């Protein structure tokens, strides 16, 4: 059933994309850097770049925090206080993304513009990542909001994974004289590393497809720049922005093509992560 629906989606997108593929050429579309609906020149690269950069940034920021939160809940506090931490995290997951976007626009962006980005430019400004004028809006804002949005996914899945670590293993380690930190480092984490990776993957998957919050914060400018301060554009954002008023088969086709590229990117990252997971192994594997 899932395969059939997936197949139908791909097929109808491909059907829409045919006129664009004919006029632009598949490869040129994929690596093209220009997006000019008037001249009907379309390239997907700036959008792929924006999507990957914001999603990876989100995962890099959210993984340590999410895993730390899960460890804190499962291994450090008494069981009866667990819901005090896990309930707010799960509530975070139920906030609509447009609300995240609004909050980002009115709270996060001014903070980034006024404090975080000037600080980064002053201390780490020698890196190309932190150069250019601090606008607030841009790849960094998109990445940070995505990190907050995928945090509940990562934390709650990791928590489930940690719960599968057999009590006998923990008790054994404690009996051998391990400290609490040593139990975490030598027993809990190695046992559940594949599952934690899976949690990160689920988070990454959510980040790749997130549309609304990102389009409100990323700056919506199809550029490829090294700096995280610079505005960018993501695949879902441009589709949402331009689809309603796209006139002409080629513009429409190019947007459908971006949909296929997004599908492909997700598929590719998923497969890579699965490979990684089976390479890492471990008994606490979870279904992803």
């Amino acid at each position, binding site marked *: 059933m899932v395969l059939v629906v997936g197949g139908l989606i791909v097929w109808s997108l491909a059907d829409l994309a045919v006129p664009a593929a004919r006029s632009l050429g598949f490869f040129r579309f994929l690596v093209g850097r220009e997006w*000019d609906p008037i001249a009907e020149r379309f390239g997907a690269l700036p959008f792929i770049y924006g999507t990957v950069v914001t999603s990876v940034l989100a995962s890099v920021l959210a993984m340590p925090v999410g895993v730390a939160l899960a460890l804190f809940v499962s291994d450090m506090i008494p069981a009866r206080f667990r819901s005090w931490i896990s309930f707010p995290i799960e509530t975070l997951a139920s906030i609509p993304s447009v609300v995240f976007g609004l909050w980002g626009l009115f709270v996060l962006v001014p903070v980034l513009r006024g404090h975080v980005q000037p600080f980064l430019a002053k201390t780490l400004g020698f890196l190309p990542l932190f150069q250019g004028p601090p606008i607030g809006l841009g790849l960094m804002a998109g990445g940070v909001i995505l990190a907050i949005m995928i945090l509940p996914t990562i934390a709650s899945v990791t928590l489930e994974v940690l719960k599968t670590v057999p009590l006998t293993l923990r008790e054994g380690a404690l009996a051998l004289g391990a400290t609490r930190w040593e139990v975490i480092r030598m027993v809990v984490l190695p046992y559940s590393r594949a599952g934690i990776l899976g949690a990160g993957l689920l988070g990454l998957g959510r980040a790749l497809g997130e549309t609304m919050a990102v389009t409100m914060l990323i700056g*919506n*400018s199809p550029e490829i720049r090294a700096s995280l301060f610079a*505005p960018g554009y993501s695949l879902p954002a441009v589709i949402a*922005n*331009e*689809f*309603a*008023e796209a006139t002409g088969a080629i513009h429409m086709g190019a947007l459908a093509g971006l949909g296929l590229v997004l599908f492909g990117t997700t598929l590719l990252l998923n497969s890579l992560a699965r490979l990684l997971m089976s390479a890492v192994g471990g008994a606490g594997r979870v279904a992803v």
Partner: protein
Amino acid sequence: MKKGKITVAALALAAGVASSAAGALLITGAGATFPYPIYSKWFSEYNKLKPELQFNYQSIGSGGGIQQITNKTVDFGASDAPMTDAELDKAPGALQHIPTVLGSVVVTYNGPMPSLKLSPEALAGIFLGKITKWNDAAIAADNAGVTLPDAPIAVVRRSDGSGTTAVFTDYLAKVSDEWKTKVGAGKSVSWPVGLGAKGNEGVTGLVKQMPGAIGYVELAYANQNKLPKAAIKNAAGKFVDPSIEATSAAAAGVEIPADYRVSITNSKAENAYPIASFTYLLVYKDQGDAEKGAALVNFLWWAIHDGQKMAQALDYAPLPAAVVTKVEATLKALTVNGKPVAL
């Protein structure tokens, strides 16, 4: 093609639900979002006059409106920008543009200056990324007595495809050759500089919180949110503040062709605000359904007369008298199965 069928099915379903509820004559339309507030006001007022008639309007965007009227899945379409020749050729019958009201695009900004005057050259320079500071000589020349900050200009523009962008870029392409060759005019364009925000509300939000920002929004939106508005120098050389009167005046300075497909930006009229446009309803010249066709033409007649009085309260500019006279003749020429409609 597949998509067309699905839309038909969905619309048939929607129409079936609505008409079975009331047993009334249901006229469906789809298209532009910009005139949606005035259209829904008209539909509800007209429904009070003729309770047997109901309208269902989906504000899905001009592109969708053109597509649906071309596929005949709706009784009328709506678009901010006139249809192109290629689009008209695709329709199975002759389509007529009916201008309903006018709107204009306002340049808004965030800065300490109490007022701002912009020449077309300065405006194009800013959006081309060539003028980057507020105290640039090209801006200062027209703003004697106003202290302009020595601050960078941050350009904000629409990221979603929109009629507002189409009107704004159409104007820039008329006043700047460089804009015309480098960027062009359309609902989505390749912007040389700036940050993209979604919708009038997105542009407003960004401009309001970014010092030194400049952006463009619809007049109605700017009025309702009390945004600062720049005066623009029109083709007659006069700086004009955006207003409803100045928008209506723009239509007076342009020769209106019989199919109304005309850009009225950069109007030659003395008091015209230069970044203005019509918004249109799209109907087939020969209506297939006798009952619906007659009702639709009568509604249009009402809209260009009584309906115009409601425009101003909703921040739309009413059609000038000369245009109303012209549309009257056009409506009289519409037919139902080849026969004229009793008005």
